[in-house]
């Protein structure tokens, strides 16, 4: 009888707590979004599964000695996983649209206003009872507006590890929601005439320019913002491997095997941060609300900047491409293309939107570097 009782004590049923059950339900919700709705499945699936694993009673997967504990400490605590992913993203990114029309960089810069405005908003939220965001917390939350998963995880792991789970989930959920969040804002801020503007074809960019570009970006970062070199440096390494054309094997590994393996473990480790005591707080609700705000402000400021540029520029600029200034590559650029085609079926904006889109990646890495330097 004693043995039976002990066995009962070792079952999950006897040890479940209500918050843990809710977190398992959250994990299942993420799995549903990934599998049935196809929302960023590459990340939400491992994150959702990690959330379930970490909340299993008795097993202690996230306690010292557990698998998820080690994965988190090796990969995220050290900042290694997001940086490896950034190398892969660099190897996947083609900068020719940006090199051909460098002014698009300004749109990528303007969209970062979403980050800094949200930082202010997060502090403002402290007036609501129940919220107590420090400047570090606020910066880590605000970076969701950069619409760049690895950057958000990197900064959150450095500035606010306690909020990492909620921040990563918010960042990836909103990136999946880009096609729903952005179009209404884009339509509200532009006239149909503006949306019909066609842009001149981009010039071809030589191979030499593409090889020098990552080196130049690294050089400038080195000189002016060394705090951003972990992110920018890995990004440039990936891009140089791609464009140099002499290390195709390495470039292919960075684009495929390395980024895939890292994604699995990054997702699991982020999921392991979805423990009930950290996630089921009012702060999570605040983070979700601020994330949406950050995205919307980023989109709007990108569009406004594009409108301004269009006034002063000799060659026309369709204000819609400004919305691609929030990174979320290549989703944001596709959304711009789609909204453009609605108003003018012959207007293909995809290549033009890729410029601000990749500029947005650089912009949010730079913004993360600035936050690290000033707040970290």
């Amino acid at each position, binding site marked *: 009888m004693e043995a039976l009782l002990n066995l009962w004590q070792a079952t999950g049923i006897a040890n479940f707590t209500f918050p843990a059950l809710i977190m398992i339900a959250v994990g299942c919700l993420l799995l549903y979004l990934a599998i049935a709705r196809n929302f960023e499945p590459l990340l939400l699936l491992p994150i959702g599964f990690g959330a379930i694993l970490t909340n299993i009673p008795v097993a202690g997967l996230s306690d010292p000695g557990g698998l998820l504990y080690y994965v988190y400490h090796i990969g995220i605590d050290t900042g290694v996983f997001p940086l490896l992913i950034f190398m892969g993203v660099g190897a996947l990114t083609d900068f020719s649209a940006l090199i051909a029309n460098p002014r698009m960089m300004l749109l990528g810069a303007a969209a970062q206003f979403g980050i800094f405005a949200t930082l202010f908003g997060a502090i403002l939220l402290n007036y609501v009872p129940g919220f107590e965001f420090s400047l570090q917390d606020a910066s880590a939350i605000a970076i969701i507006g950069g619409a760049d998963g690895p950057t958000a995880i990197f900064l959150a792991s450095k500035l606010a590890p306690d909020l990492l789970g909620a921040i990563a989930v918010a960042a990836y959920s909103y990136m999946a929601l880009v096609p729903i969040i952005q179009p209404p804002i884009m339509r509200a801020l532009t006239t149909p005439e503006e949306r019909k503007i066609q842009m001149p074809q981009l010039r071809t960019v030589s191979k030499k320019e593409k090889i020098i570009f990552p080196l*130049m970006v690294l050089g400038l970062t080195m000189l002016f913002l060394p705090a951003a070199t972990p992110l920018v440096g890995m990004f440039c390494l990936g891009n140089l491997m791609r464009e140099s054309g002499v290390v195709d094997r390495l470039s292919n590994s960075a684009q495929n095997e390395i980024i895939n393996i890292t994604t699995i473990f990054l997702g699991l480790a982020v999921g392991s941060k979805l423990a009930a005591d950290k996630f089921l707080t009012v702060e999570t609700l605040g983070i979700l609300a601020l994330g949406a705000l950050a995205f919307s402000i980023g989109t709007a400021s990108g569009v406004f900047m594009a409108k301004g540029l269009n006034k002063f520029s000799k060659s026309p600029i369709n204000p819609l491409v400004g919305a691609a200034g929030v990174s979320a590559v290549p989703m944001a650029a596709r959304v711009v293309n789609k909204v453009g085609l609605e108003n003018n079926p012959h207007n293909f904006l995809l290549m033009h939107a890729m410029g601000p889109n990749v500029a947005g990646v650089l912009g949010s890495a730079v913004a993360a570097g600035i*936050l690290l330097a000033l707040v970290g």
Partner: protein
Amino acid sequence: MDIGQLLATAANLMVTGMVGVFVFLSLLISAIIFMSKIMSRFEEPVVEAARTPSIKAQGVPSAHVAAISAAIAQYKNKQKS
């Protein structure tokens, strides 16, 4: 720090951050434009240099080359039909 002070710091961060991002990316813009100019200067002479001597060395003006190749093409077409 009370919230008012935090807000002031956040506002300060907002301004410095945006200025920082814009300055950095503007620097990058000018660097790209500068690089593209230099690159285009490097590329063109190479192409010119490769073409001109080969034609001059044979002593045949390009108009003649064009006329001769057109004649050959015409002849070949006739042979076919």
